[in-house]
């Protein structure tokens, strides 16, 4: 690489990582290059958790919380002592294109972010996440119905919310907030809303039970906890079709929408960014408001 456009030296570019759609690591790197202008703002200053698939999505991948051996010195990390793991975790942060390309070269297909920023704000979430997940035979159409009802509720509270496909079966609805509440508070908020929806739509269940009934749409408020992560907007997922966790306009959420249509190949063709300005919005959350 004579021109030195990046500090990253790519390796094994011809390795097939998504066999079903015949996508090599070169295609993965290319995807992340092209999506970077939209993806980087969503990653900024957030500790990351990676899911790496060096042998492709049909072989087992592994989670990586800790910056791996051989992490270049120019990659920023955020070190925090984990009470549960009883050791310091050196989270990777991705604030620039080089780091993103380095991640892509590691076959870190899935990039997950914490719901809070690094440093002092780590215990104060700046996102509330509604993770809406169908239990078959419930379908994506059911998920859309729940999400639209959720939007009505949030609108009524004056809260601007953003929707994206999870990249798998469900949807994520996210509210950007000022980082001044605790996870207990955001969790309580998500739980209250979940309960409300439970009453309005029989298909919804918001309580975690050991085996969610089949056919329900599960709203997991527990995702709003310290240390939990969500797939970053525009992160690839380790699915056969190389799906992407894709930000959507609310107006796009209509019955018949297929989450697998949003993949490595199609998402880069979308011009607009439905989540534009997302990272600049900081809303107040009035937890006790009904």
């Amino acid at each position, binding site marked *: 690489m004579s021109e030195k456009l990046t500090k990253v030296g*790519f390796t094994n*570019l*011809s390795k097939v990582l998504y066999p079903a759609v015949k996508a090599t690591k070169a295609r993965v790197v290319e995807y992340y*290059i092209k999506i970077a202008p939209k993806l980087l703002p969503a990653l900024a200053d957030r500790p990351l958790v990676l899911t790496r698939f060096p042998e492709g999505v049909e072989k087992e991948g592994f989670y990586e919380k800790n910056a791996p051996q051989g992490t270049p010195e120019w990659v920023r990390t955020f070190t925090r002592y984990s009470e549960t793991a009883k050791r310091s975790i050196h989270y990777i942060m991705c604030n620039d294109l080089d780091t993103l390309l380095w991640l892509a070269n590691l076959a870190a297909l899935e990039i997950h972010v914490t719901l809070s920023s690094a440093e002092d704000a780590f215990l104060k979430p700046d996102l509330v996440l509604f993770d809406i997940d169908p239990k078959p035979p419930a379908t994506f159409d059911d998920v859309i119905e729940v999400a639209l009802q959720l939007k009505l509720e949030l609108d009524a509270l004056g809260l601007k919310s953003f929707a994206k496909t999870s990249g798998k079966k469900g949807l994520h609805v996210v509210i950007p907030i000022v980082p001044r509440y605790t996870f207990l508070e955001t969790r309580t908020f998500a739980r209250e809303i979940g309960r409300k929806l439970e009453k309005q739509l029989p298909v919804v269940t918001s309580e975690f039970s050991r085996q969610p009934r089949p056919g329900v749409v599960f709203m997991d408020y527990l995702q709003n906890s310290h240390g939990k992560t969500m797939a970053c907007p525009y992160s690839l997922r380790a699915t056969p079709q190389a799906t992407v966790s894709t930000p959507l306009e609310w107006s796009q959420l209509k019955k018949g929408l297929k989450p697998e249509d949003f993949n490595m190949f199609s998402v880069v063709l979308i011009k607009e960014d439905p989540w534009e300005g997302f990272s600049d919005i900081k809303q107040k959350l009035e937890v006790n408001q009904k």
Partner: protein
Amino acid sequence: MGRFLRHQTKTGGEPKIANEKTVRVPKRPIWTGTITIGLVNVPVKLYRMIFERGFSFRFLHEQDGQPLKYQKVCTKDNLVVPWEDTVRGYEVSKNEFIVFTKEELEAAKPESDRKIRLNKFVDFYSIDPIYFETTYILAPDKNPEAYTLLLKALEKTEKAAAGTITLRTKEYPAIVQAHKGVLILNTLRYGYELADPSKLDELKKLKEPSKDELDLAAKIVGDLSGEFNIDEYEDAYKQKIEDLIEKKLKGETIVVEKPEVKEEAKELMAALKQTLEQLKKK
């Protein structure tokens, strides 16, 4: 790829896999003799303790897969010279040799009187590890009571015994110490076998770091401090070769990984340029 497998099964019977995790047990002593400390004699057998486990490959003839051997060839006429016709030469200057016959060298060999002479008891940790060369196991021979007595005495006093041993043609400084309930012997290097680092130009003008830098470095050292555990280390090359051997034994074809595919990298660079421009505009 994998096409010489037939030779392996032909000569070896059960194919050997180098993937042994446990450390080897030495089969026979490489030396037997006596430890002498003053008037005390302790008969011992010396076993290898160090087994370097890198990989040794045999050279084969590519066409027929047969092993190759080395021969001594005269540099003048390229004829193979048999062992009986060889003498040793010490090169005093370029292409000028002083000749020694085998008999002369044999006569000059140090008298290997099969003695480990120990004459001083020292604090083991006072010895700079840089002098340590290799380690042998000392096992009792004939008079195990004397062996146990020396072992227990060293354990009790927490001392190591220093002296000399002659192995083949070389006399070594040696340290005998108690280690996990047995006696072991370390041969040491002579002081003159070490380079003097202070003579290196790069090391003559080292600047003092600032206090802040030093504090930060010390903090990192603190953060990363822990117990040393040798089992945390693995030879990645060895592991890789072992995996390849197993694959080849199963008849799989090995695809050599290329570090970088030129064409593909070029394509990516075009996309990268675009993105960099886009990011600049923001």
